[in-house]
């Protein structure tokens, strides 16, 4: 039988110090639930920096390409028109007039692409159930999740180590 520890703290800095202490003892912290981002917790519990920024850049460049391709097709290739004495002979000559739409479309694709990827990767979508172990963790409490599965130590040893930290509440549950 595996055990999961939900260790609750009433302060973000206390949790951070406790996490450092536990990690120093060789305990792996599975996750942290908090009402706001705790700065500096990521390297302690081993959360890597997200690559969403790179994704956003790729979405934005896709937008740039699509916009230029579209405008080249509509204005230069398919049906060139002479509007106000500004004929459309080539993409390069017409480029200044195409900059605003290219920019807007790049931003549109970058922002929405990134937002959709973010929601999908998080699994936060309309109608998804909440998975925080205690409702107070979206208010003013900070919860650390530790499982026996991820750690080589025995449950009793881990419990003793956890109880040394200035915790607020501890809940231990069994799961398969």
């Amino acid at each position: 039988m595996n055990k999961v520890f939900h260790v609750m703290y009433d302060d973000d800095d206390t949790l951070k110090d406790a996490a450092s202490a536990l990690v120093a003892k060789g305990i792996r912290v599975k996750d942290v639930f908090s009402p706001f981002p705790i700065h500096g917790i990521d390297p302690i519990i081993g959360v890597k920096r997200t690559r969403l920024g790179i994704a956003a850049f790729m979405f934005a460049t896709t937008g740039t390409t699509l916009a230029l391709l579209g405008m080249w097709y509509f204005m230069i290739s398919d049906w060139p028109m002479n509007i106000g004495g500004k004929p459309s002979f080539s993409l390069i000559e017409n480029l200044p007039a195409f900059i605003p739409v290219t920019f807007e479309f790049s931003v549109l694709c970058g922002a929405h692409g990134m937002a959709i990827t973010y929601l999908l990767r998080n699994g936060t979508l309309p109608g998804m159930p909440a998975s925080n172990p205690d409702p107070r963790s979206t208010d003013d409490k900070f919860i650390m999740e530790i499982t026996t599965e991820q750690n080589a130590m025995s449950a009793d040893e881990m419990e003793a180590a956890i109880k040394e930290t200035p915790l607020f509440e501890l809940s231990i549950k069994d799961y398969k």
Partner: protein
Amino acid sequence: MQKEAAIREPLILGEKSYKDITDDVVGPIQGAAPIGWKIMITISTIIAIYGVGSILYLLGTGIGVWGLNKTVGWAWDITNFVWWVGIGHAGTLISAVLLLFRQKWRMAINRSAEAMTIFAVIMAAIFPGIHMGRIWVSYWVLPLPNQFGSLWVNFNSPLLWDVFAISTYFSVSLVFWYIGLIPDFATIRDRMTKPLAKKIYGVLSFGWSGRAKHWNRFEEVSLVLAGIATPLVFSVHSIVSMDFATSVVPGWHTTIFPPYFVSGAVFSGFAMVQTLLLIMRKGMKLENYIHVKHVEYMNIVIIVTGSIVGVAYLTELFISWYSGVEYESYAFINRFSGPYSWSYWIMMTCNVISPQLFWFKKIRRSLIATFILSIVVNIGMWFERYVIIVTSIHRDYDPSSWGEFHPTSVDVGIFIGTLGIFFTLFLAFARFFPVLALNELKTILKTSGENYKKQQANH
């Protein structure tokens, strides 16, 4: 831990804990609606219905019910459009630009300023839509394959750039706003006791649980969205100004228009934020979060942008004379001494002189003075657009076609109606949404909260 100088004024007053912040913001949502709110939303809904009626009348009858004529083909409609888009600039400026500059004071006001942005842009979008007359063919602005001899939209035209700019701005602002709202909806969800409300906020919160990895992504998304929304803010009103600047109408054909319009937009946007927030902080008892210092910061932005606008007015005037182009100089002489000179002088007084009063610290930190001046600025900025649009076209090169514009009751009704719709939406937001960015405010409590600052000073 991050430290802040003790002499810097605290941003969160009183002995606040994390729990108090939640209670202060979620409390009003859980409680019964106050009577004042009920009265205000009733009035604004009635005005909104009148506005919708006016719009339906316009659509059923035709653009002829407006006061437009052959000479003045753009008047209240486009004035209102530019005014609303301008107001819509403060929200994203506050949340994006101030995020990049790490301005902590933005956290108390960004949520409601962004809501204001979204509602203002919706109001703005109504005007070009109904100005088309046949709104049911408004999809013709999109480059869709068609049977008209393959007729594409004109990508050389600023009017089409505007279609892309406004729709991008609206949808990106909406996404930026909602991404920030998700964790706060989760806070409300976890505190709600009534099953239906819990269910609704549960759906709205997308199952947010506040995991470390999710917060890591959240911060990256906020930063990148802020980074790309910042040039977006500047591009949108630049493109709006190009609707005028790329024409050959004296008074519109001006190269300073893009920066002039952007600063005007920020100026009017901040004025509207002041108007709304000064009421909201009182009505919802948020005086500890949005206090005199926040108002003062916003007033400083108003002085800066107001002064830029003032310089732009004078530059325009000087260049019209210095250019030596008689049509250009006539357009400006006509502005300040012609039949519409009253609107020019209203604009000058409201936009150039009144914000200068904020140089006095007493006025800048006075809530009543700020409230009055913010309304004055809103009026002034409406007249700025009216002056630019109507006075420039009412007298063109051929005196036989000179004319004047007189608004009809439908013009007035639609404008007042959009105010009604806007306030209805904003009041609904204030009642059911977390009006302060809870998750952001909690991150600054330890550096900028009054009690924490006192503790630090005692060390």
